[in-house]
């Protein structure tokens, strides 16, 4: 396997693809949003349960490639317990990671397990796979009525 491919399909990604965490619905009053990548047909739904300003729980369901599934799975764990603003800030940092725009090592480290998706930046067409869950999370937090699309 070439080095880049090793970077992309790290064991943590393969693991989350095979056994996605928080892979279920959340009952109301949790809010949800649908995400769609029309280029590849990937679809997922993200549920967010908030307690005041705190994200109490996040879950998702959907079909997609390993990158999109692992990204969604890692996301559900990463944003749990964060404030709404922190979750949105994390989404922005994540976007920088997968587009190769993250500045320093410290910022990289702050992303914790999400760093596993850093290899995506070497594969520009796969960036949308990694971002879909995060766009959908933002929509769920904003209670957006329309499905989000990566296009």
């Amino acid at each position, binding site marked *: 396997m*070439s080095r880049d491919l090793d970077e992309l399909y790290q064991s943590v990604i393969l693991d989350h*693809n095979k056994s996605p965490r928080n892979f279920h619905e959340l009952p109301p009053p949790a809010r949800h949003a649908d995400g769609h990548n029309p280029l590849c047909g*990937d679809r997922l739904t993200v549920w967010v349960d908030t307690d005041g300003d705190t994200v109490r729980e996040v879950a998702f369901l959907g079909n*997609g490639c*390993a990158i999109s599934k692992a990204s969604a799975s890692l996301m559900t764990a990463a944003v749990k317990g964060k404030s709404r603003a922190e979750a949105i800030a994390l989404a922005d940092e994540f976007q920088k990671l997968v587009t190769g725009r993250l500045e320093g090592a410290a910022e990289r480290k702050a992303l914790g397990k999400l760093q596993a998706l850093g290899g995506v930046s070497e*594969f520009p067409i*796969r960036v949308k*796979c990694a971002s879909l869950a995060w766009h959908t999370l933002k929509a769920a937090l904003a209670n957006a009525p329309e499905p989000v699309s990566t296009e």
Partner: protein
Amino acid sequence: MTVSTATTSPTPRLPAAALDVSSIRADFPILASMVNGKPLVYLDNAATTQKPRVVIEAVRRFLAEENANVHRGVHYLSERASIAFDAVRGQARAFLNAPAEHEVIFVRGTTEAINLVAQSYGRSVLRPGDEILLTTMEHHSNIVPWQLIAGQTGAVVRAVPITDAGDVDLEAYRGMLGPKTKIVGVVHISNALGTINPVAEMTRLAHDAGAIVLVDGAQAAPHLPIDVQALGCDFYACSGHKIFGPTGVGLLWGRTELLERMPPWQGGGDMIHTVSFAGTTFAPLPAKFEAGTPAIAEVIGLGAALGYLRQLDFASVQAYEHELLAHATEQVRAVPGIRLVGTARNKAGVLSFTLEGVHAHDLGTILDSEGVAVRAGHHCAQPVMERFGLQATARASFAFYNTFDEVDALVRGLHRAREVFA
């Protein structure tokens, strides 16, 4: 690595038909490239084909030495450009075996050809309740233009079901044809399944019901000898870039009597006879449907591509492609976890499949790291994916320049993907 392709019996390497593939490959400069440190294995020909040197050179030479607008100037260059441009229409007529040159309209591609027919022919004949009959295996470009015109006229779009193998259900088709059917749209070869549809028979049945037939020939044009008269259809559409020519140019063939009755689709220069604010008269065919400056360099390039195809022995090409697809089908099918999508008896050019536990996009990325280019996704044929309960497939699609060794590289890549996702 435990990959062994020897477990499946290899088909003989020498095709019965004498097609000199290595000399053909030498005509296509891009085929010698390296991708990710590996020799390029280009198996995305249904998306677009690569270009032989004669096409690249024809476009370059036109732009460097003959560039001018056509059908306008009286100067030397314009005359040269017009002559070269017009000559391609004759080549295209021969390529389609159309009865007359004025029946061949230059368009942007298959998509534009179908939109033209939908908007011009469709708009003038469709009444509320009329039916447009398509098959479930149509490309979006032979669905959406009809949905648009149906929305504008009150006509209804209906889809003929397909079988598990990926054939049109002809019984259902017969049953769905009726007095309300005004237009039948059918793909000659499915881009997602590779099925070769019985277009001549379907046309006969449609004509019996009083409907006209448009054939989407985007995928058929590179694989089958096209003969619109033998097919008996009323419109035939194809794209230059899928027959080794440039993007941005395609062909629409239509019967004179239909094209003459149809109103212009787009207005502008070149398509008029006289213009005044009191009224405008339109140019005769084919200019009536070619408003504005055409894709001149691309048409010239298409001419070179048609010339290239003409000097090949097409019977040998077909025989070779047939063997190549049979070999690929056998080898890919033998990989554990593979499900072939589209197993019709009559197929050409396309092998669509899924690999258990590996999403098509991940498969596409892993194959790419091996230098193997395939398409992964819904292939702009979402109703087909839905029919087979899939989101996406990986698709290897072939041209006459592909080799048996390249099929083996694809199979090695599939084994690699299984290892990564083990």
